[in-house]
């Protein structure tokens, strides 16, 4: 372990510079670090400008791209300025750590080491150039341009985050963000099906890899005990040497991480998404599919390679997939006619090549691999941008249609020539330097490396073959795009402006500079590659000229065979076409998607049948079976303390029998109202049980609720047919219902017995009476519990009541319920609720004599009812009872704190009084009785409750804390007022509001429907004022 550690930069230095940037107050930073907050600043700048890009675009049109480009541009300058810090021999790499979710070891930790710096060069540099290029590629009036610019800029930021993240999960977050943004960018042309389809395909494939990677990184993180990437790499030797299951977990975890890299970098067998993604606008291809996103996989391989290239599955995956991808991509690139597709398959090929070199291990390969990453980023981005210009100026990328482009645009041709030469590996380009290095590295590796000569020479041979193909398709690209074809006429080609050409030209210039100053690049890569063991005894350097080495011979061989292959291009194409088609991976992918669709539909069809009965049966059976199974397996001794007759309440057996009979009869009833009545019997029976048990509050409330429900039922159901649905029809599943019902009932009994038998401690409620008296200032423990001890519960409950009341009203009222009900004065006497006259012919004449008078001594609006609807007895009784009942309700409300009663019971009684008014005098009577609307009452009640909750805060108390105010009144004597009573008044108002809403909706409004006739309802406009016919 020790020798590996010394290889890691900064580790040694850290001890030496203790205190330089050390902040002793920050407990999270345990060792001296070189803190660099600007990393985060760069990241945020990208996102912020991206957010405001719509404003920029609306102001400056497509030129706003230049502003966007300045963000990665300035960041690039900053990055270059960081060189001394990053490559300092004394300071550790600049880093930044902000805790995010420390429990999960998830921190916003960034680290700018040499590898990150190299990758950032590409990400920011190419990003700035591509964004600037967009300003001439698009038109100002292109749809969604601002969004596109924002996404592309955000993408640059995300990529920067990805290559600087020092936490596995943070890395994954950026990883998936690139996936999402690439989906949006590929699908930029929203109206084109090809773009949408390609975007979705890329999304699915890379997300699949991302998920595998998530599992992998969790396995790696858990086996390492940390999610910090630098710490994991530091621990790598120790982790690898572990034996048994930890090692297996690490091996699989690393393999899964590689799956993520393989999908992202479009290696076999997932390579097909990359050519598909060429449906993206060409600048996107230049950035995402050449320089940035596809390099994320390469970056991950490069990042892990120093520590984990010796794990079990690493070498096979890298070698087989890398080499296979290189050959397949090159082979297929030779068959393409679209310039962009040639580049796309070329990229696939190069990605396989780079992944292989970077992941192979060894100092020489690491050096050459990273050199290739940089060279590839430069020439491939440049070539894509060139293709974009060709497409933009001529309207096609098809090499069968293009001809004479070089003559029309020689500067563009030279730029392309440099790029293609670099791709082919011709001196003095960057590509040549890198490829020479690779050949040299693999010759050394095959001679001295641990992989052995067989693997070494095979890989080298494969690479040479792949390079031949690369040379051939590079030539094909150049010839196809620029040559003057024999028979074709010249393609119309608009002149290319300098601004448009600037970005690819600059990239090509850098390709040349790189070629002439390779030692500069070598210094950049050296600290990274030094982490690997060296194999070549002579050492290895990047250079244009190494002398007559074997590597040079291989380069010459590649060029020679490549030239022949290009000369024979027509024959070779014909030969390719004759060969039987191999595995079409895209087709396989699409078949897999079809199978997935079919399985999804099958499963949906089996589970989502649209039958409530089916769903409930599944839920209930699960409840029964799982609960019983657990009980049978776990419960050892059943309680024996079971009794039938409660000595304090022997009569509850009779009440219970009534309830049982009521319930069973209700199950059999076939008439609507009979069934309702029988269910009410169980309710009243329950009230009796409550009373006998010692719960007068419950008994009272239950009686009142049961009564009001009965009224509501009758009101709501009067329009429905009296009989219930015939049961003996198909699909009634009677037996299943019976079994489920009995099963569930029995289960609940068993559960209750076990649960109560298992209880060994004293109930907490033994403390409640004293609490209620001393803290809540009331004698009625239940009431104090509701309005004080558990006031939050009650507050939630009255909110539910208000919502339910509003729901009832909105379901019934076709018009808004907010309108005030009309006053009774506007209504003609005896006009409401007339029945067909013939039915009551003899009595009606008599009744009219008594009821035609417009004056009414008993009720306010009783006269509005038709004579046949009125009953003088009920009117008189109502007159006598109403005010008394209201007084009782207020009494119950106020006394509730100390005796039976409270807001609920009081409110229900008041509601009952209003019900009587409505039943006696009709809907105008109700309207006269409730001049305050239900909504107002509900709101007022909630407001009062909320006020009691908040008021104590202003007196230094806590929410819902109650206070006792004692004072003397002339008549009442000494009064003790507890503030929670105000809360109870709120409850009272809410309950009254609920009952009024029920009466107005199920009563008044349905009356109106009945009178208007249901069919006429559609005619009423929403905001039409309620007109009463005279």
């Amino acid at each position: 372990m020790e020798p590996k550690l010394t290889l890691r930069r900064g580790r040694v230095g850290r001890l030496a510079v203790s205190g330089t940037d050390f902040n002793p107050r920050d407990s999270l930073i345990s060792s001296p670090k070189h803190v660099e907050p600007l990393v985060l600043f760069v990241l945020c700048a990208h996102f912020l400008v991206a957010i405001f890009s719509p404003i920029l675009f609306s102001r400056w049109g497509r030129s706003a791209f230049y502003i966007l480009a300045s963000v990665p541009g300035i960041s690039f300058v900053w990055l270059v300025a960081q060189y001394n810090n990053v490559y300092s021999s004394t300071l550790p790499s600049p880093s930044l750590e902000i805790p995010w979710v420390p429990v999960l070891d998830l921190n916003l930790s960034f680290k700018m080491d040499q590898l990150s710096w190299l990758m950032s060069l590409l990400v920011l540099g190419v990003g700035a150039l591509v964004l600037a290029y967009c300003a001439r590629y698009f038109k100002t009036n292109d749809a969604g341009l601002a969004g596109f610019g924002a996404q592309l800029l955000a993408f640059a930021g995300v990529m920067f985050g990805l290559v600087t993240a020092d936490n596995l999960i943070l890395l994954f977050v950026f990883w998936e963000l690139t996936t999402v943004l690439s989906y949006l960018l590929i699908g930029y042309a929203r109206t084109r099906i090809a773009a949408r389809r390609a975007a979705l395909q890329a999304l699915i494939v890379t997300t699949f890899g991302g998920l595998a990677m998530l599992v992998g990184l969790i396995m790696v993180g858990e086996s390492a005990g940390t999610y910090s990437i630098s710490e994991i790499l530091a621990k790598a030797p120790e982790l690898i040497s572990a034996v048994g299951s930890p090692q297996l977990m690490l091996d699989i975890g690393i393999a899964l991480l590689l799956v993520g890299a393989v999908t992202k970098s479009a290696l076999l067998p997932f390579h097909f998404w990359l050519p598909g993604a060429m449906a993206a606008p060409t600048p996107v291809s230049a950035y995402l599919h050449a320089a940035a996103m596809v390099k994320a996989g390469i970056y991950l391989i490069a990042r892990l390679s120093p520590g984990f290239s010796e794990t079990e599955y690493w070498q096979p995956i890298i070698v087989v997939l890398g080499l296979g991808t290189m050959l397949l991509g090159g082979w297929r690139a030779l068959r393409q006619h679209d310039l962009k597709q040639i580049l796309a398959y070329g990229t696939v090929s190069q990605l396989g090549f780079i992944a292989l070199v970077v992941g192979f291990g060894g100092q020489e390969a690491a050096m050459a691999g990273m050199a290739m990453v940089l060279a590839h980023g430069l020439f491939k981005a440049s070539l894509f941008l060139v293709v974009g210009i060709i497409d933009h100026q001529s309207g096609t990328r098809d090499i069968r249609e293009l001809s004479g482009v070089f003559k029309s645009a020689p500067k563009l041709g030279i730029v392309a020539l440099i790029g293609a030469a670099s791709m082919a590996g011709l001196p003095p380009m960057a590509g040549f330097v890198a490829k020479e290095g690779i050949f040299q590295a693999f010759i050394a590796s095959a001679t001295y490396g641990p992989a052995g000569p067989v693997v070494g020479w095979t890989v080298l041979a494969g690479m040479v073959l792949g390079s031949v193909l690369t040379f051939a398709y590079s030539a094909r690209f150049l010839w196809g795009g620029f040559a003057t074809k024999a028979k074709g006429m010249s393609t119309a080609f608009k002149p290319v402006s300098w601004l448009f050409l600037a970005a690819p030209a600059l990239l090509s210039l850098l390709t040349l500079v790189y070629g002439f100053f390779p030692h500069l690049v070598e210094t950049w890569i050296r600290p990274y590659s030094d982490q690997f063991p060296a194999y070549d005894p002579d050492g290895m350097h990047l250079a244009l000229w190494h002398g007559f080495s074997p590597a040079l011979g291989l380069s010459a061989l590649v060029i020679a065979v490549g030239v022949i292959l290009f000369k024979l291009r027509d024959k070779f194409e014909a030969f390719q076409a004759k060969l039987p088609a191999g595995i079409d991976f895209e087709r396989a992918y699409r078949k897999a998607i079809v199978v997935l669709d079919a399985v999804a539909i099958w499963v949906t069809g089996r589970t989502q049948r649209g039958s409530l009965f089916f769903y409930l049966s599944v839920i209930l059976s699960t409840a029964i079976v799982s609960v019983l199974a657990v009980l049978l397996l776990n419960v050892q001794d059943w309680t024996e303390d079971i009794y039938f007759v409660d000595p304090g309440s022997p009569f509850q057996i009779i009440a219970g029998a009534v309830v049982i009979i009521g319930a069973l009869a209700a199950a059999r009833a076939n008439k609507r109202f009979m069934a309702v009545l029988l269910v009410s019997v169980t309710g009243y029976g329950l009230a009796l049980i409550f009373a006998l048990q010692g719960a007068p509050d419950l008994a009272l409330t239950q009686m009142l609720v049961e009564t009001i429900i009965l009224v509501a039922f009758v009101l709501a159901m009067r329009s429905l047919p009296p009989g219930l649905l015939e049961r003996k029809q198909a699909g009634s599943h009677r037996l299943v219902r019976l079994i489920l019902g009995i099963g569930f009932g029995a289960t609940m009994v068993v559960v209750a017995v076990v649960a109560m038998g298992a209880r060994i401690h004293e109930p907490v409620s033994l403390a409640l009476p004293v609490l209620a008296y001393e803290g809540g200032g009331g004698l009625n423990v239940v009431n104090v519990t509701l309005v004080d001890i558990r006031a939050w519960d009650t507050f939630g409950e009255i909110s539910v009541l208000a919502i339910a009341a509003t729901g009832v009203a909105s379901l019934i009222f076709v018009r808004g319920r907010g309108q005030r009900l009309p006053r009774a004065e506007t209504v003609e006497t005896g006009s409401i609720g007339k029945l067909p006259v013939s039915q009551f012919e003899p009595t009606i004449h008599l009744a009219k004599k008594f009821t035609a008078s417009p004056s009414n001594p008993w009720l306010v609006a009783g006269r509005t009812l038709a004579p046949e609807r009125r009953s003088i007895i009920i009117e008189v009784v109502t007159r006598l009872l109403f005010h008394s009942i209201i007084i009782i309700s207020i009494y119950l409300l106020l006394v509730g704190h100390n005796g039976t009663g409270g807001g609920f019971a009081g409110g229900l009684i008041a509601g009952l009084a209003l019900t009587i008014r409505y039943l006696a005098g009709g809907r105008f009577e109700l309207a006269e009785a409730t001049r305050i609307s239900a909504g107002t009452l509900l709101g007022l009640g909630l407001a009062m409750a909320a006020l009691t909750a908040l008021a104590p805060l202003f007196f230094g108390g806590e929410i819902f804390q109650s206070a006792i105010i004692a004072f003397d009144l002339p008549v009442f004597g000494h009064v003790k007022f507890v503030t929670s009573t105000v809360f109870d008044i709120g409850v009272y108002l809410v309950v009254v509001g609920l009952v009024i809403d029920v009466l107005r909706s199920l009563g008044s409004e349905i009356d109106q429907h009945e009178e208007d006739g249901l069919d006429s309802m559609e005619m009423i406009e929403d905001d039409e004022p309620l007109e009463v016919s005279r």
Partner: protein
Amino acid sequence: MSVNLTLLLVMGVLYAVGIYLLLERSLTRVLLGLMLLANATNLLLLATGGYAGLAPIFNKDIPPTEYNDPLPQAFILTSIVISFAVTAFMLSLIYRSWLLSRADDIQVDREDLRVAKQALYDDEEDSEIPIEVSDFHENNQPAAKRETIPGIGPKKAVQLLSEPAVPHKKPRKDKA
């Protein structure tokens, strides 16, 4: 703690009948089933309070064990009133359903059935599309060139109804 089997048996019957009614197709019976389930649950809560006792009106001379447990009582009180609100809401639902469709029963969800019967062929994913060799092709292509936007236009609906549910997959034409 001792267990009052009478209350639990009554509770069991209420649960059984409640479930039996809940599984019916008639909405009214479903509502009645819900009410019975609420009653059953209230009984369950009551049973956890143990033996019958005095009403929990505080008197400092009475030891707290003499009262019937006030905590389940508070829960039940909440439950009773909430059940009332739910019942009223369900009643409105039933009336509304009757008003709109003259139906008092639970229908099979046709949308669910349609999902289960849908064809595997999807225009967006499976149709043949031309190979594009330019980002700027809108300029030189006839306006009638097929471009379907998913979810718009009757085309897809017609396809779903008329086409047999067999995979109609053709791979996109190779780019060779």
